[in-house]
């Protein structure tokens, strides 16, 4: 199987957080030295501590560090890397970056700049898909980007209309326009977010399907030129167009739909001469599927596919980049069991998901059979407001979907994150919701079932007693011997009231 063309011995990672750690670990297994290209504040991260070499490429602002093509290329070259992995987000889907790497003699771990331009640009991708006869959601993807024209096009499509960043993903630069009066402001807002997150203000419009499921296919092209798919994931649980919970495989597909959608996904990959890991996203409504976009990179939710397929997509990416063949076409590809991923965000579930920043205290991820954790920060690290709020991912695998849900709930209950608020209570509520349990959720699941922030329940009698005891221990530890406690009981007020 192995056909080494250009063995990579040192690889630069142009990313941060949990995905940087994920790539580091794949490199460790492959015996590849790592160079982390990081911003100034990210010296406080797990990836920084794990990397063999580290190069600071700029200050906290993403435009000057993680989105700076020249700084990344220069950093990788200075450290003597032969290859660069862009992770996801930031420059991972930037064709200019892929080209700049190639021009500097660096292997870009991902598809070619030409493939990114064809498939990654949502506007081009749709034209290709249209030509290939694949079903598309009605929309506008023209070059006239003036707000007045975009508003006119939105009116023509008919509300609700969704406005999206052409170069984007992850919900950034994406807004839902329900009524004519909000169109101008929301389009402008999407353009600003798109410019800030992806360096391009270009947007496109799409008819909003109001009871659709989000289904995507993992495709992979290896160095032999073969393109295959590793089945589907469902990511219908989204808030503000940002995925929260993903699973493989989808509970919603019939075998016929799975086959047809898989064929469409591979067809797109073949047209784009796709190499490496990519994702073809679809919306599914009333038994009809529509191509949404292609993500020309590793996906945040790639672990659920790895769990049900028994593969390592990051290693496969790196092997493909150095010219190895990774697809064994003599073996049937079958998925086994069910896997769920929960994205853990630093945000306050009791305040409608407001970002929560701070110094991380104790952090514990409860290991166990079929449990996997991807995280980028540990106790002592600071979670700042400069970057995405996703601090970790919890992934579980079990024989059936029902058991996987049960396992995820317990895993989240036993996870400890001190120092920032997290969406863990919110995730547990979602996983327990009948619609999720039945697998009938659509992309409007959150909007419909969780329109309001969660209510933080009053402490139980057990909790009050434990808090009391904790305060006493802390006071005893900080006070000199013999001195009385100076910290008042947290429930003093309540006791007086009783």
């Amino acid at each position: 199987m192995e056909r080494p063309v250009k063995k990579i011995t040192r690889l630069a990672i142009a990313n941060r957080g949990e995905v940087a750690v994920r790539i580091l670990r794949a490199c460790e297994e492959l015996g590849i030295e790592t160079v982390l290209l990081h911003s100034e504040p990210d010296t406080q991260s797990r990836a920084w501590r794990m990397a063999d070499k580290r190069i600071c490429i700029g200050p906290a602002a993403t435009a000057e560090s993680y989105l700076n093509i020249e700084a990344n290329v220069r950093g990788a070259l200075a450290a003597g890397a032969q290859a660069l992995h862009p992770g996801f987000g930031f420059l991972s889907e930037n064709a200019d970056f892929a080209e700049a790497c190639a021009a500097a003699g660096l292997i870009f771990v991902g598809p070619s700049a030409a493939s990114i331009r064809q498939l990654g640009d949502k506007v081009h991708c749709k034209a290709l898909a249209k030509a290939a006869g694949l079903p598309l959601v009605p929309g506008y993807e023209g070059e006239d980007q003036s707000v007045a024209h975009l508003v006119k096009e939105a009116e023509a499509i008919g509300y609700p209309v969704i406005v999206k960043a052409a170069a984007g993903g992850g919900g950034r630069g994406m807004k839902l326009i329900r009524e004519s009066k909000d169109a101008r402001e929301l389009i402008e807002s999407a353009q600003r977010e798109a410019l800030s997150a992806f360096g391009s203000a270009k947007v496109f419009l799409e008819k909003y399907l109001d009871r659709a499921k989000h289904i995507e296919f993992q495709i992979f092209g290896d160095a032999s030129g073969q393109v295959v798919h590793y089945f589907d994931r469902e990511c219908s649980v989204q808030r503000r167009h940002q995925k929260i919970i993903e699973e493989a495989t989808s509970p919603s597909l019939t075998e016929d739909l799975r086959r047809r959608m898989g064929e469409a996904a591979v067809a797109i990959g073949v047209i784009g001469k796709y190499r490496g890991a990519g994702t073809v996203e679809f919306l599914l409504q009333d038994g009809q599927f529509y191509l949404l976009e292609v993500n020309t990179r590793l996906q945040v939710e790639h672990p659920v596919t790895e769990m049900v397929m028994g593969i390592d997509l990051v290693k496969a990416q790196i092997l493909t980049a150095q010219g190895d063949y990774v697809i064994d076409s003599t073996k049937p590809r079958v998925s086994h069991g069910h896997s769920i991923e929960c994205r853990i965000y630093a945000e306050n579930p009791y305040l409608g998901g407001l970002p929560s920043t701070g110094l991380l205290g104790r952090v514990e991820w409860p290991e166990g059979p079929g449990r996997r954790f991807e995280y980028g920060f540990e106790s002592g690290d600071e979670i700042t407001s400069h970057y995405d709020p996703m601090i970790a991912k919890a992934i579980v695998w079990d024989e059936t979907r029902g058991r996987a849900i049960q396992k995820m709930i317990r895993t989240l209950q036993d996870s400890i994150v001190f120092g920032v608020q997290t969406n863990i209570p919110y995730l547990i509520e979602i996983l327990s919701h009948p619609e999720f349990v039945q697998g009938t959720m659509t992309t409007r699941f959150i909007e419909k079932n969780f329109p309001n922030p969660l209510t933080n329940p009053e402490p139980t009698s057990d909790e009050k007693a434990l808090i009391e005891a904790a305060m006493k221990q802390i006071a005893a530890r900080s006070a000199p011997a013999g001195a009385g406690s100076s910290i008042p009981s947290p429930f003093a007020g309540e006791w007086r009231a009783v």
Partner: protein
Amino acid sequence: MDIKIRHEGRDISAVAEMINGTLWIHYAGRTRAIEPQTGRRARGRAHGAEASGELRAPMPGKITKLFKKTGDTVERGEAVIVMEAMKMEYTLKADIPGVVEAVHCAVGDQVGLGQDLVKVKPS
């Protein structure tokens, strides 16, 4: 630290830690943040629930848009400021109808948690 106590005849235990004046405690599948001085659960935001006309930054971040200037009238629920933090935009809306009395920030400003941004005088 680990907290082990006997409560109502049962042995129970929790994990707890004091971080910058907030007590974090994990027990029976739930993490809580408690502010010991008040006995209240940490609110995590600088302004209370009462409508006051004071718009304060609910998080550290950058001001990306200001829709109003001093002297403008605002409706309750009308968008006044757009902030960006963690790569997402948040719109701050007026909580009372009135007239903008003062604007304490400008587009591009990096603001801290709880910082005063705009004051609306009730009409």
